[in-house]
């Protein structure tokens, strides 16, 4: 059975390592914070100017001056710190943030990512995504394997305007966990109950399938 959004977030959370500073994008990536593996400590950075984000506030305790990059009201943990946008992107550009998790409309087998614009149709802007993908040492993309029409978003080449070039390392979709290796998608794991055949069928880019493709372990 294909993963839901929380399932994708759970699988990505398994990639977290102790001591990492992590930036989570809007949407599915935000959910990753709910599934930090036991025994490890990570700190979340939000590019609007906070390190050490806590959970959402209790009803009635929202603070208009305290939001994350998705403009959601949040709280802070002990040891948190606020800073300005230039300092925030100094952290990102200067590679002080160890992992970036973000969504995408398309990824290519060479690690290109498109996520910010559909020409003539949707123009939201890139926000901090271009800075994040240009600099992060580890980038995991969280996305659906296909669009609503069933067309693959895992492509040989992106068709939409790019957010970054050759930067994506890992992709977790509702169907599979893939890595970019030597200019191809490498199938690392399949979602519980999803067949290798289905993944092959729904992947437009070149996909390397090893002899044995383990199933993801999701609680």
């Amino acid at each position: 059975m294909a993963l839901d959004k929380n399932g994708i977030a759970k699988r990505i959370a398994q990639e977290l390592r102790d001591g990492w500073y992590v930036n989570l994008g809007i949407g599915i990536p935000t959910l990753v914070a709910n599934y930090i593996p036991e025994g490890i400590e990570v700190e979340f950075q939000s590019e609007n100017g906070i390190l050490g984000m806590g959970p959402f506030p209790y009803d009635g305790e929202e603070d208009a001056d305290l939001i994350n990059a998705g403009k959601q009201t949040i709280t802070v943990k002990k040891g948190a710190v606020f800073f300005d946008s230039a300092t925030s992107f100094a952290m990102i550009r200067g590679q002080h943030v160890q992992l970036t998790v973000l969504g995408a409309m398309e990824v290519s087998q060479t690690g290109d990512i498109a996520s910010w614009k559909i020409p003539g149709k949707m123009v939201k802007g890139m926000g901090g995504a271009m800075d994040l993908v240009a600099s992060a040492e580890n980038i995991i993309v969280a996305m659906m394997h296909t669009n609503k029409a069933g067309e693959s978003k895992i492509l040989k080449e992106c068709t939409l305007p790019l957010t970054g070039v050759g930067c994506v390392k890992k992709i977790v979709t509702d169907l599979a966990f893939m890595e970019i290796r030597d200019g191809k998608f490498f199938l690392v794991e399949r979602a519980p109950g999803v067949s290798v055949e289905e993944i092959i069928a729904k992947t437009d880019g070149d996909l390397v399938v090893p002899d044995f493709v383990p199933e993801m372990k999701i609680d």
Partner: protein
Amino acid sequence: MNKVVKNVEEALKGIEDNMTLMVGGFGLCGIPENSIAHLVKMETKGLTCISNNAGVDDFGLGLLLQKKQIKKMIASYVGENAEFERQMLSGELEVDLIPQGSLAERCRAGGAGIPAFYTPTGYGTEVAEGKEVRVYNGKPHILEEALTADFAIVKAWKGDTEGNLIYKETARNFNPMMAMAGKITVAEVEELVPAGELDPNYIHTPGIFVQRIFQGEKFEKRIEQRTTRKRD
């Protein structure tokens, strides 16, 4: 050096048609509400606004968009504003979309006398079109130029009569860099105190960057995405 002006009228005096304004804030957080409301009253036209976002339809810079006072918007993310999208797709509004980190750094550079710098951000994308590329540490970088403005309008939590500013939590965001980059910088604050009341060790924007300061009459502080959890 006393920077206090008596109200928003006096603070925004000199803003004319076709000027470039920087406006602080991220989303609706930390925006200069009183100044924006007064700009609507002033009916200034043909403005170029540099701001990370363009507000929502009925608040923030969205108010200026509704009145068609903005000719060009320089921003990083404009996803929450239907009127913005309509004006852009119809060609009424010029738009320059800039990666958020490059926007922040370009404002800081403008204030710091750095005319240009190299950044890896945007290489290989539309953002890099027409820009010089140079390889550092084995990685291509593009050359980005500084941004400045005729007026920078920022919002702070506390300010003193010398123009020293302190921001609250994530309402800091773009305000400090924009305060540096304005030929004239106007600060509206929630609380204006006499010089000497703010601890000199904890000031975010030194008063040297601020030309005019006033206490805002009213702050709505609208929340864009109210997210909460239930008590256990």
